[in-house]
């Protein structure tokens, strides 16, 4: 420790995010499986409705959000799972960085992970469901951005909790999905309205809920995170 400054919260968070992303980039196991899961689910959901009754473009928003929620859970699962193997979490806890920084770092890592999946899944959706590329898809990208921040905010905290329980992987969806309800409900509606070409004023109320959710749960989960670690 001699001769080295202890990093500030932002610098420490960035270090942790970089470490997680480097592990992920070198192994690529979680990323590939989440990605394949997302695209596979998009394809399978195509066949769960009769397209002569419900046109594919009409169900695209619903499919998108179900797929993003569940592939997101796959990514979040790994977040603290990787620290369990060699008790890496202990090393993080004894290192001279604040616990809030651990949370923020993990959240940034998860955010990048989920964005990377979405970067493939959304164009895949547009191709498979014959949606127009262009402005509506960009607007949907914005909605996805807001929703993903909320998903990651609560998901990162619950991932830390879930690894310390007997139930481990089983617990994360059970804990996270009720918290995803307001995100998925509003985001899916906003997406539907965007694809239907409605004016932005109609989409705005949904976005306001998403933004409020992001702010409230980013703050609350950052404050709550230290309580979920061993003392």
């Amino acid at each position, binding site marked *: 420790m001699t001769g080295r400054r202890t990093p500030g919260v932002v610098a420490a968070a960035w270090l942790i995010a970089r470490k997680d992303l480097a592990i992920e980039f070198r192994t690529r196991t979680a990323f590939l499986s989440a990605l394949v899961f997302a695209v596979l689910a998009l394809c399978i959901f195509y066949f769960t409705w009769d397209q002569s009754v419900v046109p594919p473009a009409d169900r695209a928003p619903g499919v998108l959000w179900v797929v993003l929620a569940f592939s997101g859970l796959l990514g979040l699962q790994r977040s603290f799972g990787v620290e369990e193997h060699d008790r890496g979490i202990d090393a993080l806890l004894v290192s001279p960085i604040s616990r809030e920084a651990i949370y923020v770092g993990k959240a940034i890592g998860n955010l990048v992970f989920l964005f990377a999946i979405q970067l493939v899944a959304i164009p895949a959706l547009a191709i498979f469901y014959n949606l127009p590329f262009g402005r509506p898809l960009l607007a949907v990208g914005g909605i996805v951005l807001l929703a993903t921040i909320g998903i990651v905010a*609560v998901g990162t*905290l619950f991932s830390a*909790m879930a690894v*310390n*329980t*007997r*139930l481990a992987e089983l*617990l994360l969806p*059970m*804990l996270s*999905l*009720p*918290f995803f*309800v*307001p995100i998925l*409900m*509003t985001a899916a*509606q906003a997406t539907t309205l965007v694809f239907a070409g409605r004016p932005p004023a109609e989409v705005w*109320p*949904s976005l306001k*809920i998403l933004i*409020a*959710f992001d702010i*409230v*749960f980013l703050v*609350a*989960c950052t404050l*709550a995170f230290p*309580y*979920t670690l*061993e*003392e």
Partner: protein
Amino acid sequence: MTTIPVSNGTSNSGSSGRSNGTPAPAAPRAVFDWFSAVAALGVVGIYIRAIYFTPIERLQGAAQKIYYLHVPAALAAYIAISITALMSIVYLWLHDERADRLAEAGAEVGLVFLTVVLTSGPLWGHRIWGAWWAWWDMRLTLTLFLWFIVAAYLIVRGGVEEAAMRGRYSAVLAILAALLIPFIHLSVYLFQARLHPMPVVLKPGEPSLPPEMLTTFLLAFAAFALLCIAFIRARYRVGLLRDLAAELAA
């Protein structure tokens, strides 16, 4: 549930865990629980009154009698869940295990009453709305998601073995859930506001409720509130005995 046969603090005299002379936490005395008995009698009395001595509603017929179960159960659920949320804050603040035990009791009792609400609601809805479930009814939808959250809370409690960690995890979860509820409320509101006009639920004129019905209602509220507190007390004692047993075994 009302009598708990445990001898008071004498059974642990030979236990190695207590060799340092600290007194064992007092075990609940094995007494007849008057509180539970009064609450149970109150509920029985309410149903006798509701079934035989309260007029039948003109439009809804006998189906309206479900109100005397459904609405008080919802009130009891809210009491129990509020206790959980409040005690979770107290626990994170003071680290008092009594607060954690009360929070646990509140959640479990809350889940029971929420289940009553969720089963009696569709029974009434099927008769009056012609549909078992109505997603546009905000209260029903909200109650359902509340049920899932409380269930997750109890599953988390069951999944953590170490007491201090279990307390912290469940307190964090309960506080976050309290923050979540307004968001679910808002998003359900937004969802139904766009698709449907506000639901015109048959509400037999709340202010002009006939006096017999109003009295039955108020008595039912009181009886269920008592029952809720009696359940929480009993469940708290179960938690206390469990912790005591764990301590003696250690």
